């Protein structure tokens, strides 16, 4: 067994492990493990309907954002609006 093979084996396996670790750390950072029981129990209720719900909530958020932007634009417009003399 040569040095290079040992280095390669340790290097590759550690790298793969580190990828998993990074994924876990990302999960912790984005709050996916904040609630232990949800993490375990909620999986039972996962289904097509829940997915549709999640999409619906996303849509709602999008609509809301558009509305907020529109309002902002309008507010901007009002600011720049000069009444005609």
């Amino acid at each position, binding site marked *: 067994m040569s*040095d290079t093979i*040992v*280095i390669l084996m*340790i290097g590759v396996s*550690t790298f793969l*492990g*580190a990828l998993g*670790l990074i994924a*876990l*750390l990302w999960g*912790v*950072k984005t*709050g996916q*493990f*904040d*609630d*232990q*029981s*949800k993490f375990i*129990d*909620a999986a*039972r*209720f996962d289904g097509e309907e829940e997915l549709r*719900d999640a999409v*619906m*909530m996303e849509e*709602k*958020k999008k609509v*809301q*954002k558009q509305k*907020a932007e529109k*309002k902002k634009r309008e507010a901007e417009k009002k600011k720049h609006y000069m009444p005609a003399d």
Partner: protein
Amino acid sequence: MAEVACTHCNLVFDESVMITEKENDKTLYFCCKGCQGVYHLLESEGLDTFYTKLGDTTLQPASNNVSEDLEKFNLEGFKNKYIKETEDGLYEIHLIIEGIHCSACVWLNEKVLHKTDGIIEASINYTNNKAKVVWDPEEVKLSHIIETIRSIGYNAYPYDPSLQEERANQAKKSYYSRILVAVFGTMNIMWIAIAKYAGYFTGMEQNFKDILNVAEFILATPVLFYSGYIFFRGAYYGFRNRIVNMDTLVASGALSAYIYSIYAMTTQSGEVYFDSVVMIITFVLVGKYLEVLSKKHAVDTLDSIMGSTPTEVTTVLNGIKSLVSVENVQVGDTIELKPGEKVVIDGVLTSGQGSFDESSLSGESEPVYKKKDDEILSGSICLDSVIHYQASKDVSGSLLTSIVSLLEESITKKPHIEQLANSISGYFSNIILLISLLTFAGWYWLDGSFETALIVGISVIVIACPCALGLATPMATLVGISIAAKRGLLFKEAAFLETMAKSDLLALDKTGTITEGKPTVVSAEIFEDFDPALLLALVSTSNHPVSKGIARYLTSEHKTLETITLQNIKSIEAKGITASHKAQRLLGGNASLLQEEGIGIDADSEHSLFFFSIDDSVVARFELSDTIREGAKEAIEQIQAMGIEVVMLTGDHAQSAEKVAKAVGISSIHSRLLPQEKAALIQEFQNSGKVTVMVGDGINDAIALAQSNIAIAMGRGADVAINVSDVVLLDEKPQSIVEAYQISRRTYRAVKENLGFSLLYNLIAVPLAVAGFVNPFIAALSMSLSSLVVVGNSMRIKILKFKGKS
């Protein structure tokens, strides 16, 4: 008659009392209108899959008062206090949802909220039932959101997460990430280390060794500096305050082993110790994480106390009633209190009279009767009548606010953790650090070579630190904790055993700790035969502790009692209950009720009395008293025999306190104490040099518990009390307190023995290291041998014998 389960809440009742309904070919049963309403609502919304998800779990029956006090959620004061406005003009609130029993409930609540127009985000935490809701104020009002939650049978009240929760969550997440990194590093280094151990005995070429060393180095570096950051920070704070604590030891030990290993790696001389570096960091870190977790639980319960306090009160000015935010109430304002309302502002009663539940202040479950000019304390609950009182303090000066803020303070800067940085290890690490410094200086002076001096100096720390000290305390306390847990004593942290062993003063709460905390029938006299089911029906209509005591007595004496429905039930304040059944007139209550009705009785007793009369003739007389827990006297005697001073702290009046104290053999009594006075007394004890253990069960004991060196809570006590406590007695037996002392003292002895042994080991090994004789083989052998001895000695705690075996 058959018993059936309610279709909605699954609680089982007699078929005859159920509301029945035919749907297609199925019969539906409901225990109340509330459940029926929720069932039909869910069905029409297409949410009836909830019931398949629910399974056999029982819920609490849905209540009917959906629209009660909804307007308060739209008030300005409420908005300022709880609602946060986001950048997009959305509103955000944190709610605690009441009535959640299982994950299906969470599912239902989230689902219903998601379906409501205008709600942008709704997520509920499964563990603590806290919800975060974001909504568009232009589309939906908060009162509507609350109404929606109530309409499906739950209730919600707000809390302010900025208090503590966000900070606690942040700490938890940071620990979690650090532990993940530490565990990853340790596991991989262990694999490499096994290869190296194998190589040590069978021979390994230097170039392979180098590769493995470098791999270990790469893995150990993030563990030491990222995961171990907490210890470096702790050591730094300790250094600034001139304290040598556990963090100093871990940080200096790990860092010096790391530096030594780098040196050994680069010069290809000697063994590397990266594996011990990561092991120390990982194990101690996991222990610290458990502490952070228990702290977070305490925060959760505090929020529920704060959340249930009203934000508005009704004030009366010149006959006009108005809702005013509590912050705006001034001293001298007249406040109206309705039945069931919680008092938030202290004051003096001006008109009306009624009973008040002061259990969260005094610990006594018996309501206190108040009339004109009596003092009203915040934290108590008005039970049965409408009264007016004049505010004598503003909200921030009131008792309830000061209790909550005191508790908050005690949780955030809980004194234990610093205090308990166990002092023996502290001294020890000081000495080792000193020796290694002297060794370094000595070698440098004698040998002249900086390099050799550094290696020998570090080898002293390496050989002394990880095994001998790392295991001596944790191993013994681990065994101690597991024995305690088997006997129903939960020590939340290992270090508490040590403090408990050193304690020389035990403070006991009276009600609920020495006594059962509820009135129990001590003697019953039956003058005429009567149907006990009648009496049971009568007392079941009241929530008064005496009535409950009678009900408990009846159900334990008579196995099966049929349910009788009474008419004209009337409860008379602070006296009793009257009702009628088939032209019979039933009276149940104390002596003054019967005297009022013109019935002559013998009302001479030192206990609380309860009379039962049918048609104006007394048929039974019960004496009730709060009984002392079984074995309390013996337990207190044993504790006193250990040389521990026992005192009693109670919110009850002196007379009854003295009676109980005499019965159990306590001579030092402090009575009529308010929650913060209890805490002040504990501090007084501590100032006079006593290590104080406090045992309590109620909200009123919580501050004193948090103040004491070791707090013991009863397993069925208030949540707050349990959460601020260090030890929980699951079986609530006084004998368990004795056992807690025995176990902690035995464990402490084992810790001392272990430390003594490691001292001996160090006395031999350290001089060898100082002399520069430590080769890897001796180090490996002596380390594992010393660990084995420590483990074996700790196991001996298990043969501890208890008096009065169960």
